[in-house]
């Protein structure tokens, strides 16, 4: 993959835009003409340079690029893209505003349904959401050639200006929000807007949930999340960090002793899964959560200043194929690992990670081993990892999820020499809150059972995000936060 410098992308876009502008001033473009406009590539840091820094990899569209990309949208009457967005953003309408160079207008359109466009524009798996059904991609038979809705959304969020939402007069009611990830941030804002008092309780010393402890700086700058939280505070939301609901105070205490009228639980899916193979507790084996938390939240990558240590691996095996695995692998690259291997039991097509992250990882030199699954982790005499034994797989019949099931090839095992293994096969629901609150009904997987509006089995308690869905996405968490907030606002009226 060749890297085009941001400067040349801008140059190119400038030319494309000036010719488009003349065309547009003459007569509206036909669909065919629009389909011929080249898709704008995302400007990004040079792969070699970014291996050694934590700065954001992509820069976001230049204005000219956004203008050109916006003209690729056919403004379809039926707008199939909208159905692909979990919160149904009116995509053609916000893109039209970009065409009119009205970026704050575009942001206003997005804000009708989404509260976190600067985040979702960056981390949504667009190729399987809004961009999947896009007419342009369909016509070109390649969803990757769809209108770059996510990039445009990010452009708008970064250029549309910021404002602090209006807060209605105080109602005297108050709501406790557990957690401070996307579900919680959204619920807090929507409830506060109605004039209710809102307190956010977060176990960590910094709010933001996975957005700050999991997703690395190079993919989602912490400053962006901080801004969202500042906005909340400017609206009068109180954020209490270092507060573990279930331990520092129970849910019941909050309702009965502290006078909260309602509770929203957005506590996420923070329980790392392990492979349950031999050698998993050797020195040098980490859950991705630990590795990423050390690096991101505890800033261990900043060796000069941070107290929290992180091992500087030489050869790494990352187990898994999702976003978490990509983040762990690329963090290891940035911590100077010589060789980072991703071991995934299916093929590239089945990888659940965002396509862009897989491309970026590959550009950064991460080595992918598809159709391989670890059999055991081998240690040396000091109990330190020395190698991982993997087994070759082939794809068999499709399973329940419709993906072809990987089947082990007996006797195919071999060793890869590594000193660090990062287990990134996903998260289950953290049981802390639910086990300390027997009134809360949970399902077999430990997720809180909630109805459409997020209402749980416990009186005055709603829930949303990963704690209900199981490890899912930012946009889904945000959507659930909104729904629950609406229900809570309604319940507080009476």
């Amino acid at each position, binding site marked *: 993959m060749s890297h085009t410098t941001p400067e040349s992308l801008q140059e190119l876009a400038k030319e494309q835009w000036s010719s488009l502008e003349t065309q547009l001033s003459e007569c509206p473009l036909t669909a065919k003409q629009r389909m011929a406009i080249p898709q704008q590539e995302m400007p990004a840091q040079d792969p070699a340079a970014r291996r050694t820094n934590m700065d954001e990899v992509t820069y976001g569209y230049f204005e000219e690029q956004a203008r050109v990309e916006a003209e690729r949208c056919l403004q379809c009457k039926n707008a199939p893209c909208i159905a692909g967005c979990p919160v149904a953003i009116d995509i053609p309408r916000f893109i039209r505003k970009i065409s009119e160079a009205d970026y704050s207008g575009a942001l206003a359109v997005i804000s009708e349904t989404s509260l976190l466009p600067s985040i979702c524009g960056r981390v949504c798996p667009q190729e399987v959401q809004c961009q999947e059904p896009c007419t342009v991609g369909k016509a070109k038979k390649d969803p990757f050639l769809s209108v770059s809705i996510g990039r445009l959304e990010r452009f708008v969020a970064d250029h549309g200006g910021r404002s602090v939402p209006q807060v209605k007069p105080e109602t005297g009611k108050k709501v406790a929000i557990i957690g401070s990830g996307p579900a919680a941030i959204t619920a807090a804002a929507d409830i506060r807007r109605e004039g209710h008092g809102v307190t956010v309780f977060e176990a960590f010393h910094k709010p933001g949930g996975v957005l700050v402890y999991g997703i690395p700086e190079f993919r989602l700058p912490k400053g962006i999340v901080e801004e969202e939280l500042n906005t909340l505070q400017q609206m009068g939301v109180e954020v209490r960090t*270092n507060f573990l609901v279930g331990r520092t105070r129970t849910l019941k205490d909050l309702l009965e002793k502290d006078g909260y009228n309602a509770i929203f639980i957005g506590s996420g899916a*923070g329980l*790392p899964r392990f492979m349950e193979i031999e050698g*998993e*507790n050797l020195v040098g084996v980490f859950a991705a959560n*630990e590795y990423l*938390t050390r690096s991101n939240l505890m800033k261990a990558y900043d060796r000069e200043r941070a107290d929290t240590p992180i*091992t500087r691996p030489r050869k790494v095996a990352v187990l898994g194929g999702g976003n978490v695995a990509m983040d762990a692998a690329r963090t290891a690259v940035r911590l100077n690992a010589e060789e980072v291997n991703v071991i995934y039991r299916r093929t590239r097509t089945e990888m659940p990670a965002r396509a862009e992250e897989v491309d970026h990882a590959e550009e950064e030199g991460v080595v992918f081993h598809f159709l391989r699954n670890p059999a055991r982790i081998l240690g040396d005499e000091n109990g*330190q990892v020395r190698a991982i034994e993997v087994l070759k797989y082939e794809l068999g019949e499709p399973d329940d999820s419709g993906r072809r099931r990987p089947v082990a090839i007996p006797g195919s095992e071999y060793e890869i020499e590594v000193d660090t293994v990062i287990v990134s096969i996903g998260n289950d629901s953290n049981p802390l809150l639910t086990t300390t609150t027997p009134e809360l009904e949970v399902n077999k997987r430990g997720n809180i059972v909630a109805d459409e509006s997020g209402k749980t089995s416990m009186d005055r308690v709603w829930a949303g995000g990963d704690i209900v869905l199981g490890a899912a996405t930012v946009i889904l968490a945000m959507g659930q936060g909104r729904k629950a907030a609406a229900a809570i606002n309604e319940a507080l009226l009476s």
Partner: protein
Amino acid sequence: MHTILKREQLSEQVFRIRVVAPLIAEARQAGQFVLVQVDTEFGERIPLTIADADAEQGWITLIFQAVGGTTMRLAALQEGDAVPAILGPLGTPTHVEQLGHVVCVCGGIGAAPMYPIAQAMKAAGNRVTIILGARNHDLIILQEEMRSLADDLILVTDDGSAGRKALVTEPLKELCQAPSPPDLVVAIGPPIMMKFAVETTRPFAVRTVVSLNTIMVDGTGMCGGCRVTVGGQTRFVCMDGPEFDGHQVDFENMMKRLQSYKTQEDAARHTCKIGRNP
């Protein structure tokens, strides 16, 4: 604000601070701990046991040994200063019941986490014997507190500079050999001491609880960094522990994992000493 109300130095390296933390003081039970952070930007979060608490006055007591970056910076804070971040109470509380005779084996700083457990065992109507051990006289902490609490106190030092010259396992073995062996042993101290305590009681089949001090990050079960192997299964110390059935714990593995960051911590402690203390 977690203001430090009182600060004392118990021995060359050991400090006791009383800090304002009303919610934690109200909620805590014996055997629970907190995560402390002295610098919320770049600092580490370290686990310390709640050694004592007063729910009415809203404070908790922490006793810690200044061994590295964070504990040294904590030791440098004075009365009136505030500890920036304290999260808790964490962990599963000690299972306290009336069993008969409970023997509490403390090694060094292990006396700090033991104190509230011994208190609770006593309050539940048990006869409590405390074996208080340290390398030498200067490293013994909480002797007076323990003496006034215990039915019997056995003091031992490695070098005989106080009490009996012995390792904690010697009196422990004698107690196990007695006609009526202890109903429960609780052992807290350096991993190696806990390991030997467990090996001492094993042949007598005396139930032995240990409190594990693994490395932690979040303390809420999210990172898996504190995991240990207990009875062949992976358990999280911050959630399932810190107390476990000592006869089931894989101490070898735990000790190796504790060393994971040793070189880096040593380097950090070095820089810390030469100028990073506030």
